[in-house]
């Protein structure tokens, strides 16, 4: 209730409140400024960051910029999820809708440079100021002619965080780490060593230093992948075997498989649940604010342990501001904005809060926080051994496949050899495809695109045309609905079939007609795995939803018939879960199932003596969790249908059953079931379709992980189309789904039209 009131107040006041403020969630700068620049910022690098401290510092910095730049206003956007940020930028580039300014991960630069989208900043950026930046940030962003294409904003490095009170000295090698961590987890009953093994970039990037330190290389000088061929194969296998051994030796819990953001590492540390973790330099401020001073004093950092004591290595990342605006006036304003935000003073202020390592040399000199802080001096030393990911177009594919390999090796589902060789094969296929792909550019004109249009029009006309004479008046009544359905439903269905026979990419490059999408799909072992996952998910969800829905409906009906209770409350409770948007259900269950001891479900399980359990990280339990969440949400639908069905059973039948003294089961089998059978059949078809198309709930809950163990067909399709931008392949998957949908629709229609028993 309080929330509702607050909400109303804010909804009323929100938009009005912003008018005289220079920084609002919707706008930075004066509302009457003639020039409006669009900015796609990194998630944690603007006043819209979902973390109050970071949002606060950018609020200040942006306000100062706005106060001195009355002629310019900004529309800042943050993309949902990092992968999405990249994919959306690529799609926007193809559609000619790029923002004026964007923040991009440094290793994406080649993708945007290749298209000629990124604009050089030299004209607006004084040479002397550039000299203040760490050399690698300028070199990486320059072309041969001395043009600089971006402003690096902050870098980072990966380190081993460890508890000094538990470990007299940090482990330097894997063997030492396994031994120390194993001992601590046995003796202290906390995790010895945690790291990212969930399905995301960090699961690979955090471990690349272990590969590089052995002399391993991901790609050769020409940018072709080499990590799976000798001698690199052996080095990568060592890393995967080490990761597998962290679980085998008891050094790490299986929950590492669910670690898909760094917060899980920080929170384990704050909760006192871990002795060591492989994290990033930016986590330091979180530890400092999350822990009491005495607890924080127990923590220290060390270089990442390697196979053998020897050369150090760490991975450095970082984000880059780039300007896409082509118009000189906009470019100038954009560059001024970036150089204000990245001025030495602001870099110092911002880095202090974000925990990023500044890339301006003067900050380490002039800013007491960085100059006198021993932590930063040490991060600085580690940065010397830092290495960035290769800036080549194939890297995203390598990362995607290695993420899976890490998942498989850690879960023990595949041997490191199998996991690596499968990843290697998949990357080579992508590489061959990318190199064989026609040069970028749009296909001039493809007459086949008219086919679905013509068909959709024909279908629409076949309904309208026969309306002649007196009936011609009906046309106007049907036409609007027919138009909408033809344009945005029938046409896409037909176009989907066409697309499935192409190798087109979502951002609309040239394409050819081919059966390759279907062939690749049918020969891809991952496809069958995903089909299996989908079958388990759909079958279990459907059976549980139907079963529980029916059980609850029977309970409510029985209670109602006997006047025990009106049961309105219970009904409302069940349906309330169903009206929650699927994404929120996913977020809600993620919070319930969180794998630390403060997670409520794990807390209850441990009270019951069966927990804590890896509810999101073990392949089996993660699937169970996803099914449970989906059942929780979907029960209501079945309950309501079944309840409606039960209401149509005449009272006399029940009374007759009462007179016969029928027990509960015979009554259900002989009286109830025959009456509701058609409803059950219909219900079955409807929820099968719904479940088959569910991915909104899974995305925030497990994102398909661990590895691919909860990646259902719809998520796979979405990923192919909008992360990997393989529209052709996604269309082929979607055609399979479409066929299933229509088949089930026919089944449902038959259930509907079957004559009902007379009431």
């Amino acid at each position: 209730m309080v929330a509702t009131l607050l909400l109303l107040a804010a909804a009323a006041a929100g938009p009005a409140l912003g008018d005289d403020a220079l920084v609002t969630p919707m706008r930075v700068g004066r509302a009457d400024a003639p020039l409006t620049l669009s900015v796609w910022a990194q998630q944690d690098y603007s006043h819209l960051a979902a973390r109050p401290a970071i949002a606060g510092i950018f609020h200040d910095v942006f306000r100062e910029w706005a106060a001195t730049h009355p002629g310019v206003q900004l529309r800042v956007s943050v993309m949902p999820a990092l992968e999405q940020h990249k994919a959306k930028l690529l799609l926007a580039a193809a559609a000619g809708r790029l923002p004026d300014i964007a923040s991009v991960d440094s290793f994406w630069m080649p993708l945007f440079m290749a298209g000629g989208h990124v604009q050089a900043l030299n004209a607006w950026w004084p040479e002397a100021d550039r000299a203040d930046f760490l050399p690698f940030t300028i070199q990486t962003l320059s072309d041969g002619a001395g043009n600089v294409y971006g402003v690096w904003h902050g870098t980072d490095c990966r380190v081993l965080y460890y508890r000094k009170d538990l470990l007299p000295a940090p482990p330097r090698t894997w063997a030492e780490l396994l031994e120390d961590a194993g001992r601590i987890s046995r003796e202290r009953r906390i995790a010895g060593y945690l790291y990212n093994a969930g399905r995301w970039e960090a699961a690979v990037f955090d471990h690349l230093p272990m590969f590089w330190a052995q002399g391993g290389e991901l790609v050769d000088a020409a940018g072709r992948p080499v990590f799976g061929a000798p001698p690199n194969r052996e080095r990568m296998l060592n890393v995967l075997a080490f990761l597998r051994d962290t679980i085998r030796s008891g050094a790490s819990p299986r929950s590492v498989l669910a670690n898909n953001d760094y917060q899980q590492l920080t929170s384990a540390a704050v909760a006192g649940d871990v002795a060591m973790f492989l994290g990033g330099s930016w986590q330091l401020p979180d530890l400092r604010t999350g822990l009491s001073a005495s607890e924080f004093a127990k923590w220290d950092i060390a270089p990442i342990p390697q196979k053998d004591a020897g050369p150090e290595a760490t991975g450095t990342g970082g984000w880059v501001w780039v300007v896409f605006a082509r118009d000189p006036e906009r470019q100038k304003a954009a560059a001024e904005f970036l150089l204000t935000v990245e001025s030495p003073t602001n870099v110092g202020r911002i880095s202090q809060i974000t925990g990023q390592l500044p890339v301006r040399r003067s900050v380490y000199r002039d800013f007491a926080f960085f100059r006198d802080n021993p932590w930063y001096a040490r991060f600085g030393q580690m940065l010397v051994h830092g290495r960035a990911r290769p800036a080549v177009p194939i890297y995203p594919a390598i990362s995607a496949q290695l993420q899976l390999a890490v998942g498989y090796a850690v879960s023990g589902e595949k041997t490191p050899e199998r996991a690596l060789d499968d990843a290697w094969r998949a990357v080579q296929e992508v590489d061959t495809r990318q190199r064989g792909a026609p040069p970028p550019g749009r296909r001039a004109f493809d007459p086949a695109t008219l086919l679905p249009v013509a068909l959709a029009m024909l279908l629409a006309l076949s309904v309208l045309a026969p309306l002649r004479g007196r009936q011609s008046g009906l046309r106007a009544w049907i036409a609007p609905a027919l138009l909408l359905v033809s344009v945005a439903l029938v046409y896409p269905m037909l176009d989907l079939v066409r697309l499935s026979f192409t190798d087109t990419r979502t951002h609309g490059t040239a394409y050819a007609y081919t059966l390759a999408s279907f062939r690749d799909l049918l020969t891809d072992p991952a496809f069958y795995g995903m089909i299996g996952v989908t079958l388990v998910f759909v079958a279990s969800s459907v059976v549980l939803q139907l079963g529980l829905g029916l059980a609850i409906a029977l309970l409510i009906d029985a209670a109602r018939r006997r006047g025990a209770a009106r049961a309105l409350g219970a009904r409302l409770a069940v349906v309330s879960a169903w009206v929650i948007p699927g994404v929120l259900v996913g977020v809600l269950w993620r919070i319930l199932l969180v794998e630390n001891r403060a997670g409520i479900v794990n807390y209850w399980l441990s009270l019951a003596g069966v927990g804590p359990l890896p509810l999101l990280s073990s392949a089996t339990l993660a699937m169970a969790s996803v099914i449970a969440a989906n059942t929780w949400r979907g029960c209501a639908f079945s309950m309501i249908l079944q309840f409606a069905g039960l209401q149509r059973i005449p009272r006399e039948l029940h009374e007759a059953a009462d007179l016969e003294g029928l027990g509960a089961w015979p009554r259900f089998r002989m009286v109830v079931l025959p009456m509701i059978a058609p409803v059950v059949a219909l219900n079955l078809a409807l929820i099968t379709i719904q479940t088959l198309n569910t991915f909104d709930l899974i995305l925030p809950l497990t994102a398909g992980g661990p590895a691919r163990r909860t990646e259902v067909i719809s998520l796979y399709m979405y990923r192919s189309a909008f992360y990997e931008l393989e529209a052709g392949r996604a269309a082929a998957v979607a055609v399979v789904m479409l066929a299933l949908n229509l088949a089930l629709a026919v089944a449902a229609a038959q259930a509907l039209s079957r004559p009902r028993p007379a009431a």
Partner: protein
Amino acid sequence: MKLSTPRRWGFRLGLALVAAAFLLPQLWLASISVKNKAGVFEFPPRWLPRDASLANYRFVLTRTQVPWYLWNSAKVAGLATALTLLAGVPAAFVLSRERFPRREAAVHALLAVQMVSPMVLLVPIYGLVAGLRLLDTHAGLVLVYASVQLPFTISVLKSFFDALPASVLEAARLDGASRLRTLWSIVLPLAAPGLAAVAIFDLASYWAEFSLALVLLDSQQRFTIPVGIFSFQSGYETDWHLVAAASFIGLVPVMAAFVLLQRYFVAGLTAGAVKG
């Protein structure tokens, strides 16, 4: 039949358990949403946090775009529902009350198409909206929403219209009322509860829709509530107490509408599936 006291309590207990299973998760979300960062990781977890505050709500409502996500969702869902009904009501009326060639085929086609999830069509719909130059606009989203929900809407409305007594319509025809007049002053008032059920069901579906909004919108200023809240999970670190507050804010309007209008909700839910 009179129930013995133990059995009566047995039923009550069963119902209470069911209610708890569906309400407790939501209450936990509410609990997290008034905690601070340390409270989220407190052990043992507490349902009633020691220093509960509305600070998370204040942050979410004043420093983020969540109020605008709510506005966007309301706008898109409202416009899409209006468009759906505007196109759907006349079509359903004609399909229900008029006899013309291909009518049966059209009804069957509707029944089949209404089962196809827009999820399946993400790729071609993206292409279509890009082609219409409507990417990153609410207009594009409204157009697509209304279209994909139309078959369901029409078939439900048709079943409501089918159920109206023929005599009333016959009388209207004898009075010489036009088709439009019949629909407006006779059919719609009679079918009002059904119309409300459909409208609410459509509104709720649009409010919850995620995949199309995720794919078709780019600017955060235009995000709807599901996409906006999904984007609250940061890639590096997620502040769950803020996510919980934002999520709870996303739930409140649906819950409020649901509690007020639950009769129609349930009618809308059953209507399409179980006919008369």
